[in-house]
């Protein structure tokens, strides 16, 4: 049983009961967590690609083309598996529904892939119907590199490791394929309200 350090609070503020998932703490800042070096992809080199089950590009946008798509301004709560939650975060992004318009697929799963090699897997159904965006703006400004800019996936209903930073595309798959953290202990789905942090939770 760990000893308790009187007066130690860490970087957290008081949680309002019922507002955040079990086991989480509220934070005021926006912690930066990363599994590797910050990526700095120039916009001129950036594109976003949707690859279908056969590996063919079913959709591709350069940065200019991406910026021309209709975008949403959204306010969501985000929950990290390392236990911090941040309420009322402001993002601007293109809905994955918009990107998937016109994509014919029977795939049930998707893997998001990023610059630097990070991947995360989700059921396709969890990135549709207004549940996911490719976000390029945070708090009224362009998304900073250390928070995943130029663009990151944003899937607020799942733990935030699923909101892949530096995202460059989605691969549609018939069979599920665990991503970077799902392959080494993290829960395959990751619902914060059911505290699905690790394998077997």
């Amino acid at each position, binding site marked *: 049983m*760990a*000893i*308790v350090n009187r007066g*130690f609070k*860490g*970087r*957290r503020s008081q949680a309002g009961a019922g507002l955040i998932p079990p086991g989480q*703490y509220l934070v005021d800042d926006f912690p930066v967590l990363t599994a590797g070096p910050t990526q700095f992809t120039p916009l001129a080199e950036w594109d976003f690609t949707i690859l279908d089950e056969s590996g063919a590009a079913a959709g591709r946008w350069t940065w200019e083309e991406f910026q021309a798509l209709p975008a949403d301004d959204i306010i969501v709560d985000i929950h990290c598996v390392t236990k911090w939650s941040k309420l009322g975060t402001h993002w601007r992004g293109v809905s994955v529904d918009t990107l998937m318009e016109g994509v014919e697929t029977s795939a049930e799963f998707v893997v998001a892939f990023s610059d630097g090699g990070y991947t995360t897997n989700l059921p396709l159904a969890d990135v549709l119907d207004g549940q996911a965006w490719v976000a390029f703006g945070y708090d009224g400004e362009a998304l900073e590199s250390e928070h995943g800019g130029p663009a990151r996936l944003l899937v607020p209903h799942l733990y935030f490791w699923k909101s892949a930073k530096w995202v460059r595309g989605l691969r549609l798959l018939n069979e599920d394929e665990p991503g970077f953290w799902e392959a080494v202990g993290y829960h395959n789905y990751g619902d914060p309200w059911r505290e699905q942090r690790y394998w077997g939770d």
Partner: protein
Amino acid sequence: MKWLVATVTETTPETASAVTIRLDVPDWPGHRAGQHVDVRLTAEDGYQAQRSYSIASPPGSDRLELTVVRIDDGEVSPYLASDLDVGDQIELRGPIGGYFVWDGDDDRPVLLTGGGSGVVPLVSMMRHHEAVDSKAPMRLVYSARTAGDVLYRDELANVHDVTITLTRDQSSEWDGRRGRVDNELLATAGWPPSEGPRCYVCGPDTFVEAVANILVDMGHDQTNVKTERFGPTGG
């Protein structure tokens, strides 16, 4: 490695933002110069945070001392540097690390290069050097921001073969070196590669990266250059 309960027996300010904490740890197995401990803090609601701190005290005694530099928006260092009282307890595990150590068991020259709080494990090595009356020639190059940030200033003033350089000091009181650790400084204040010195580099990652590259470019064998990164702001 088990978590041990350490009791604070003394806290001594080193600078305006750094404190040396002396700890009593029952069953402390002893340590080697350059090793570190992991410290874990637990809040009343169970939240935990963990950080590594180099051991400042030399091997051989029961003394376990950590020097903690307070980082303004840090999570652990403000608590350790400001809120600990004598008699408080903290959890730690260690000693950790057999790579970044100097045991003083040979006479090869030693070049210690530290940036900011990276000087802490190097001072453990210097203190060990003195305690065993080692014949190994040892030199320290220490980069700090301002004169007020220099750790162990009085102690280092009494040791020759210490070169301190300040990178952000604007005052006229400092009559020592200014500027970053560079090729020229390491050539004059260090050892030539032909001496085959053991080199230890510790501090923030950008400091370690830059100095290690300079040493290798100067001709030091990469296997003689040992590095320890302390995080983006030096711990």
